């Protein structure tokens, strides 16, 4: 992230979410911090239950009432956590928008697609129906929906999965938001369609210069789509780095395990994959400290008791590059929430 004195587009500080459950009150997000400027692309990666979708929903103000949010979420300097529902409604779809995983359930099956694209335009920009319909057509053309004019009156069930996701994107972009949150936008799609939809999102985000917060469990996808990645585990960010650095060097034992466990094309038939022992812990079994402690080869007693601090990981290759270019060293590049990362690096 570039050091900047300007108000960040999105600033998330010590974000915590506690859920009221049958197991009592559980902290599902345990202090998430990050900042984005316009044009930044940030990826959230992690396994199911790690809190990545919860982070997105907290930013959008879409958490259920039983969820207690603490910490700060500021969009263009405006604090969102204390905002009334009505005020949030004015922002959602206008200044921030979200694309969900399953376009069939996110779209209303009872309305033709043009009406669903027109809705945010009428609501936020006060457009009348006919100009909203004309704008809907432009948007559908922009997301490259084939034969857009004929499809304006189509219902979601008449479209394929990829086409529906294009419609979802056109709804999200209708009011030219400052930030787009995409939660597993292509997980339900076939690979060839996924490739097209991701290319479209990348192109539109670059054209409009908005911020993109992309959520995925797919490391390869992150590599193509975002400049910076945060790895989440057990409700906390365990590592954060530029995508390039992370693909070069992983500091957290979980991130290392995650990268090693992926089957990759070209592995010899029958090669055993490296595994991370154990299972992703259920939220009510999270320890006080690091949620990865039970599966970690480098665990110390203190890891279980207190959440480890974020430590900065100097990246030698990058420092040399920066020196050559005559730039000051960027200190906020690579962070890891693990006290043992230096020892580990030596042992790898």
């Amino acid at each position, binding site marked *: 992230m570039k050091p900047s004195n300007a108000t960040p587009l999105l600033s998330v500080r010590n974000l915590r979410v506690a859920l009221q459950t049958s197991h009592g009150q559980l902290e599902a997000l345990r202090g998430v911090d990050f900042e984005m400027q316009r044009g930044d692309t940030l990826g959230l990666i992690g*396994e*199911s239950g790690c809190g990545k979708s919860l982070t997105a929903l907290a930013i959008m103000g879409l958490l259920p009432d039983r969820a207690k949010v603490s910490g700060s979420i500021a969009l263009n300097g405006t604090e969102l956590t204390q905002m009334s529902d009505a005020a949030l409604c004015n922002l959602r779809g206008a200044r921030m928008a979200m694309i969900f995983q399953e376009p069939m359930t996110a779209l209303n099956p009872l309305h033709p697609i043009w009406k669903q694209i027109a809705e945010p335009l009428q609501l936020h920009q006060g457009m009348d129906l006919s100009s909203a319909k004309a704008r809907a057509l432009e948007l559908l053309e922009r997301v490259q929906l084939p034969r857009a004019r004929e499809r304006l009156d189509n219902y979601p069930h008449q479209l394929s*999965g990829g086409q529906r996701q294009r419609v979802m994107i056109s709804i999200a972009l209708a009011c030219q938001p400052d930030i787009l949150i995409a939660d597993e936008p292509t997980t339900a799609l*076939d*690979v*060839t*369609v*996924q*490739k097209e939809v*991701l290319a479209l999102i990348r192109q539109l985000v670059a054209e409009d210069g908005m911020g993109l917060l992309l959520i995925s*469990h*797919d*490391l*390869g*996808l*992150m*590599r*193509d*789509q975002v400049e910076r990645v945060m790895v989440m585990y057990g409700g906390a960010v365990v590592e954060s780095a530029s995508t390039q650095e992370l*693909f070069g060097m992983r500091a957290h034992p979980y991130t290392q*395990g*995650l990268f090693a*466990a*992926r*089957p*990759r*094309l*070209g*592995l010899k*038939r*029958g*090669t*055993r*994959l*490296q*595994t*991370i022992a154990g*299972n*992703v812990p*259920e939220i009510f079994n999270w320890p006080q400290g690091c949620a990865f402690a039970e599966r970690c080869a480098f665990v110390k007693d203190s890891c279980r008791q207190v959440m480890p601090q974020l430590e900065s990981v100097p990246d030698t290759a990058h420092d040399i590059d920066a020196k050559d270019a005559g730039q000051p060293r960027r200190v906020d590049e690579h962070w890891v929430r693990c006290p043992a990362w230096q020892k580990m690096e030596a042992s790898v």
Partner: protein
Amino acid sequence: MNGPSEVLLDVQHVSQQYALPKPSVFAKAGHIQAVKDVSFQLTIGKSLGIVGESGSGKSTLARLVMALEKPTQGKVLFKGKDLNALPQDQLRHARSDFQMVFQDPYGSLDPRQKVLRIVTEPLHSTLNSGSGQSLSAQDLKDRATQALAEVGLRASDLGKYPHEFSGGQRQRIAIARALITRPSLIVADEPVSALDVSVQAQVLNLMMDLQDRFGLSYLFVSHDLAVVNLMCDDVIVLQHGQVVEAGSADDIFQRPQHSYTQALLSAIPGLSH
């Protein structure tokens, strides 16, 4: 190449058509061709991958091999016997030799049954009724304990319900259920695509270990080419119900010939670096 004795599964020119609902009472019902003239052979102890996108006929082909559906044309020969020509009771008995593992470890285990009952289900349905031979409660328990041990679960898990397990553990239970009859063939339909990456690796390793130990064959249905590359000796690529390319996994993934296979490979994210 291979003698006929080594062929475990011989799928010959199978096609499967489904009738579409009639648009009106007087209209003729349309048909959809889910699988069209597909042939392949699977050798004992080897694995064959079926890849393709949704709607390409992968799962229909798996159901045809499992004799859950009768093909409209063609034959499925398992150990030389035409499964669809077998009388019901013999088919039921034959089923103990080929078992299936499904994609969704949440949907494929009966939430109201304990693990003991779930894992021994194939014994009840194939052995007890098919051959007249019956197993005592203690036999069932011993067989279930052994099957669980093979997939890395404990005997104490027999008395638990599916909801007490994580997704990866549930898929192990599903594999134990498939293993309990000591089958020669396991048809696995997207067995790891619902699992997290760190758990997926454990289940894939387990499936490879079991293959080495028991000489199993896998018919492995997946959309994930890297997983198929790892697990399979041979691959067929399906598009619109037809085989567009078939060959050894090395050939298909290193030197894809068909444009569709090339498109599938180039669409894998993260490879263009």
